[in-house]
């Protein structure tokens, strides 16, 4: 419902102030007016710009939002820049679109924008996007206008509402109207808006409702209504909260599973304590970086290329470690531990020398950024969602290999009784190489996933080695299902504890819990059975 009185009030507000005439009416002088130190003056010029009918308005506004609008040193022309490789800028005249050639790094100075102004600019820009063909873009534009909180844009929304034909966009505009009405001076409109907001989980709405509740100067009726709407919203949020925590836990758990599952094969099946496991993960992450550097144009597919590449790289390095070091030390766990620790240091230093000690920037493809909104107020981030399913996929693949293939059969045979397997004609050496290569390769694949979540640097692996051992030991050595259950449950327990106890204490509690658990059941959750184990 549109309230006439509000409209009048708003109309008064939106009448342009006389000072706008100060920078003339033609497009070029308005663009030049953007070149000022004061953010208020910039906003004024940009608001004026947004109402103009000129083909370059969108280009200039977008450049300003993106921080690509500069002034040229010397004559102060406002220019749109494209940064060139190796410093320097390619300049285009903002007003005319004329190419102004290249200048050095010091030849142009950015026209700065702060957060407040950027938010308002996004609103202004969105007001020009309301008439585009894509309904999703229109909804995004409406949302940007809500975020900008600029009442002067209300009328533009109303105009659009009259001609809008897509239902979703109509709904979005209606919600926006309610949000605007929350600030209304008119009691009845405000009350209606407050009541209509009871199931709106938008954070802007919650902010405004809280402001109403705590505003002593307002009518008691309004404040009560706001309080009850707010209580309703809180109830909804609380209901989603445990689902969210569960997902956080499963996500953390899936990362633990990914990191540990390769170790579960080498440690669990072969009995090798491989301290370089973390570095094999790190190599996988660096492979992602190399793939992205080699194919800068194929960013969206880079992860798909990186997964097999990382498997091969880490797998080969793993085989090299097995052939070069570990095979001389079978049956001597302490020496294996020390030797592989040395290998881990060598790998770290190698990476430092090749790629520099600084962290490398691994970009996130578009399809892994942002979050999936299941219902309003409950959203799950895409990267973690994909990684969760990816972990399950890796687990399933590995299980199939071990249960259904010839290699799996041989691996299980060697695990149960080395000597007997050999007597049956299984070549132990070949099985050792392939098993270690498989475990190392899986670590590399985990590295690809981790590159999307954390820093890709020489120390990446160190952060995961302890957690990996923890999961494998807790789950029961040599049991893949154990690793899965242990990883996921440790993740969930950690996340349930975290809000109450804090990140540091939660981690300590989990460790204490595992120590106590191991006292009771030294073989973990799912102990292996059989005579070989007993001996």
């Amino acid at each position, binding site marked *: 419902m549109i309230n006439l009185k509000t409209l009048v009030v708003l109309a008064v507000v939106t009448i342009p102030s006389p000072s706008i005439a100060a920078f003339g009416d033609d497009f070029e002088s308005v663009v030049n007016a953007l070149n000022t130190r004061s953010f208020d003056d910039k906003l004024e010029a940009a608001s004026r710009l947004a109402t103009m009918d000129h083909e370059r308005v969108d280009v200039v506004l977008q450049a300003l939002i993106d921080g690509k609008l500069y002034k040229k040193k010397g004559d102060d022309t406002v220019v749109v820049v494209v940064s060139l490789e190796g410093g320097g800028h390619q300049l285009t005249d903002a007003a005319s679109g004329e190419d102004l050639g290249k200048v050095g790094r010091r030849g142009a100075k*950015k026209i700065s924008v702060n957060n407040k102004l950027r938010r308002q600019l996004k609103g202004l820009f969105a007001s020009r996007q309301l008439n585009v063909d894509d309904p999703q873009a229109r909804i995004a534009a409406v949302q940007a206008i809500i975020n900008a909180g600029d009442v002067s844009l209300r009328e533009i929304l109303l105009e659009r509402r009259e001609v809008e034909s897509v239902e979703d966009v109509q709904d979005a505009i209606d919600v926006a109207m309610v949000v605007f009405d929350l600030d209304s001076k008119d009691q009845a409109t405000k009350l209606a808006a407050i009541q209509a907001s009871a199931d709106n989980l938008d954070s802007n709405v919650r902010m405004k409702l809280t402001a109403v509740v705590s505003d002593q100067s307002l009518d008691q009726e309004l404040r009560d209504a706001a309080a009850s709407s707010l209580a309703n919203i809180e109830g909804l949020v609380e209901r989603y909260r445990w689902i969210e925590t569960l997902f956080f836990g499963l996500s953390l758990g899936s990362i633990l599973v990914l990191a540990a599952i390769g170790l579960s094969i080498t440690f669990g099946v072969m009995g090798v304590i491989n301290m370089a496991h973390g570095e094999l993960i790190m190599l996988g992450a660096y492979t992602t970086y190399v793939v992205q550097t080699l194919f800068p144009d194929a960013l969206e597919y880079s992860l798909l290329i990186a997964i097999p590449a990382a498997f091969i790289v880490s797998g080969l390095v793993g085989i090299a470690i097995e052939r070069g070091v570990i095979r001389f030390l079978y049956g001597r766990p302490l020496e294996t531990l020390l030797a592989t620790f040395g290998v881990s240091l060598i790998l770290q230093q190698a990476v430092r020398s090749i790629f520099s000690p*600084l962290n490398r920037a691994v970009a996130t493809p578009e399809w892994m950024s942002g979050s999936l909104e299941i219902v309003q107020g409950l959203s799950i981030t895409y990267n973690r969602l994909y990684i969760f399913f990816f972990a399950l996929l890796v687990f399933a693949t590995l299980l199939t290999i071990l249960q259904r293939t010839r290699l799996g059969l041989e691996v299980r045979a060697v695990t149960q009784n080395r000597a007997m397997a050999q007597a049956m004609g299984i070549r132990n050496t070949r099985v050792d190489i392939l098993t270690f290569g498989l475990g190392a390769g899986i670590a590399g694949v985990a590295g690809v996933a981790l590159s999307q979540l954390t820093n890709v640097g020489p120390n990446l692996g160190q952060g995961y080695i302890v957690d990996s051992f923890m999961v494998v030991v807790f789950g029961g050595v040599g049991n893949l299902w154990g690793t899965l259950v242990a990883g996921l449950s440790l993740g969930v327990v950690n996340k349930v504890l975290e809000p109450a106890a804090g990140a*540091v204490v939660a981690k300590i509690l989990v460790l204490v819990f595992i120590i106590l658990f191991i006292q009771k059941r030294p073989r973990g959750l799912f102990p292996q059975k059989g005579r070989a184990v007993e001996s």
Partner: protein
Amino acid sequence: MFRQLTKVCAVVVLSFSATWAAADTIKVGVLHSLSGTMAISETTLKDTILMMIEEQNTAGGLLGKKLEAVVVDPASNWPLFAEKARELIEKEKVDVVFGCWTSVSRKSVLPVFEELNGLLFYPVQYEGEESSKNVFYTGAAPNQQAIPAVDYLMNEVGAERWVLAGTDYVYPRTTNKILKAYLKAKGVTDKDIMINYTPFGHADWQSIVADIKKFGSAGKKTAVVSTINGDANVPFYKELGNQGVSAEDIPVIAFSVGEEELSGIDAGPLVGHLAAWNYFMSVDAEVNDDFIDSWLEFIDDEDRVTNDPMEAHYIGFKMWVEAVKKAGTTDSSQVQDAIIGVAVPNLSGGLATMMPNHHITKPVLIGEIQDDGQFDTVWQTPGTVPGDAWSDFLPGSMDITADWQAPLSCGNYNVKSGACSGQNYE
């Protein structure tokens, strides 16, 4: 007899090498980690000092002598810092040392410098609560970084609810203690302050970001003051971006994120978040452009950046040179006296002056992160702010002041009791 002889020989050789060194060059010690976890940050500072020395030598040296750098590697190992410091002063006979990054490394070398009466220029922002006769703090004290940052958020952004998030060690804990006291003095209640500590290198920020989001949707503008260290920042900002928390909703202001840290990551998700420093590479000043040019030429890599601690070393080095010229000697005690009041240009077009408390005057800049990993200055103090060694907001240090000029000559003088409690005041 034989032992006696070796002793004599050693003394002769030592004194000979000392006189030879003194006659020929002035030795400048560089005490920065070149390996280990801190190497990322500290190697740059070593190169900065080497560049400054080279420039000074091209300009004719100092007191008619050439400067000579003595570089040692304390390998990010705190006790080793003390050993290397002793080696620099006793064995190498350096006249001044530029070094340290973490507070714990500074605390480790402090007794050595005080015992041997050396000179240390410390270039990194720190938690304050210290003033030594032998140390010159060219980085920011809390009142030159943390307090103005909070003021900016309060006055310009309108923040009313505060999340103080930090890595669990001494600098964030002390800074947050000061900030909490400051916020309460400004009328912020306990329920509007949330404090959160995480371990070094924390990577899983899901719950904490969800908590911040919840805390921030309670109807008041919320801001995050971050003392999160190094590596942990990237997953933190990524998680903020993925959960849809933009800088426009809940701005994060960081005290440990600079150009160098941003150069290793994809800055896309960080755009609009803030940092408070005393210098940005993007500062618009001729002297800064010149510094950047000579840095890029010295390091021979167009992609390198400059940052705040580099500027601190730039200032510290220039100040030391001026003080030595003023004193006419490199003798520690005389340089300590001469340097107070020395003013040299900083890189943002102003002047930095050494105060009697061994801290310097600095402008405070608030910048927003851009997608090229640079900062855009959105606010700055009108003039420079003198560094305050002892915070005015902590009950234990309110009444303490530092003044190394005669007649006080004390780093922790209690104005109420009139007592100087000595160097080891806690």
